[in-house]
């Protein structure tokens, strides 16, 4: 299942493991990334907590845990290649994986249609 947040994160749930990243819309807004700070494996986050930071040339932006869980993997490639997030935000540029506490929390997130509507509304401002 693929879901999105208002803060432009995506989440792909396989069983009880969620892979999380930022959306193509987000990477375009941020511009070229120069640094990504990822959580430590084993760290736990509640839904909405700051889990990671992505930095462009100009500024740092926080990435929130879309649902609560424990970090089971982080994308080590991003240390040397933060630009992967720009190039493949939904593929090779994934940020981290959480073992989720409550898969039901994912259902409350935006589906594809709702996210497209959100980005369309934001783009028109």
């Amino acid at each position: 299942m693929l879901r999105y947040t208002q803060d432009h994160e995506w989440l792909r749930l396989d069983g009880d493991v969620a892979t999380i990243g930022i959306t193509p819309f987000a990477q375009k807004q941020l511009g070229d990334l120069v640094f990504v700070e990822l959580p430590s494996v084993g760290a736990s986050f509640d839904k909405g907590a700051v889990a990671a930071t992505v930095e462009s040339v100009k500024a740092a932006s926080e990435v929130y845990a879309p649902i609560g869980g424990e970090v089971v993997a982080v994308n080590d490639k991003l240390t040397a290649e933060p630009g992967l997030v720009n190039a493949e935000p939904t593929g090779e540029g994934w940020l981290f994986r959480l073992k989720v506490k409550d898969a039901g929390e994912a259902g409350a997130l935006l589906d594809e249609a709702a996210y497209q509507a959100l980005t369309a509304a934001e783009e028109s401002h």
Partner: protein
Amino acid sequence: MSEPQPTPELRRTPLHDLHVRLGARMVPFAGYAMPVQYPDGILKEHLHTRAAAGLFDVSHMGQVALAARTGNVADAARGLETLVTGDMLGIAPWRQRYTLLTTTAGGVYDDLMVSNHGDRLMLVVNASRKDFDTAHLRAHLSDAWVIEPLTDRALLALQGPAAEQVLAELAPDVTAMRFMDARALTICGAACFVTRSGYTGEDGFEISVPGEAAVALAEALLADPSVAPIGLGARDSLRLEAGLCLYGSDLDETTTPVEAALEWTLPKVRRAGGARATGFPGAQVILSQLAQGASRRRVGLKPEGRAPVRAGAPLFADERAAAPLGTVTSGGFGVSLNAPVAMGYVSRESAATGMRLFAEVRGKRLAVTVADMPFWPTRYRR
């Protein structure tokens, strides 16, 4: 997302529509709508400028003509010397100098370029300060001087190793110019003022052009395959790598020229014992700091890791010290260096090159090293 805000009334440079046509992302800056980047993005724009030639619209900056009613440029220079640290009288015809407008407390009102145009001086000042600077000059110089903001002129910067070859196609005389030379030249039929200078550390030119001729000149330059349009985002990463100050961040009314490591803007002739010593606001404070040293100093900082350290981050002697010894005033990513770079003010004892300090970033203390600037070699054509 927050509620939609009413669009503030932003001023536009003559190149505004061109920027939009080129796909620029426009942002507010100093009351203007300015391009922060074009579709290629900041990294590519920065690298392109150092590899070939970047074209920047800096028309938001202030261009102010300062003349004496006597018509004598020396009188204009004497007037300006009552407000700046530099030797303005010594600027030869068609040469340019960098100088500082000071406050009565010895701080800095603005940093600016001054060129001698034969019968008057031409000042190029920061966009965010141009209204203040004009009012300041008018308040302090009697009506024996004429201060004329040239609001009908645009300013383009062409920077990079290919800049000379590109501009020479339109104005062959530029090949004879050396760093900090100024010339009046006709380019694409327009009466321009050109200096060989810039804000990137590269060789390049700043071209003052009448507003109505700006688009044609920009398009003529952009027609050269070596030239790409560059936004304010890359302008900032380029100047930071070059170790250049940004007024409002690295310089402000609380920073003296000595603290800012800009003592060189105070030549011998304006120092104690010089023929035209003092006579500028804050001279006593500044000259006593020159003699005894200032309690803090602007330095370059190189983070040891990959994380950028940005403006506002406090600096400490070690991982546990409670009291900061300084603050980062500019920080970001050195794109050519492929590493984060920053500058800030630290206590004089901590200002030694190689000193290891700690910046606090998101609650963690990150090691940074005091480093000489520029972070990337400059290539001025002296």
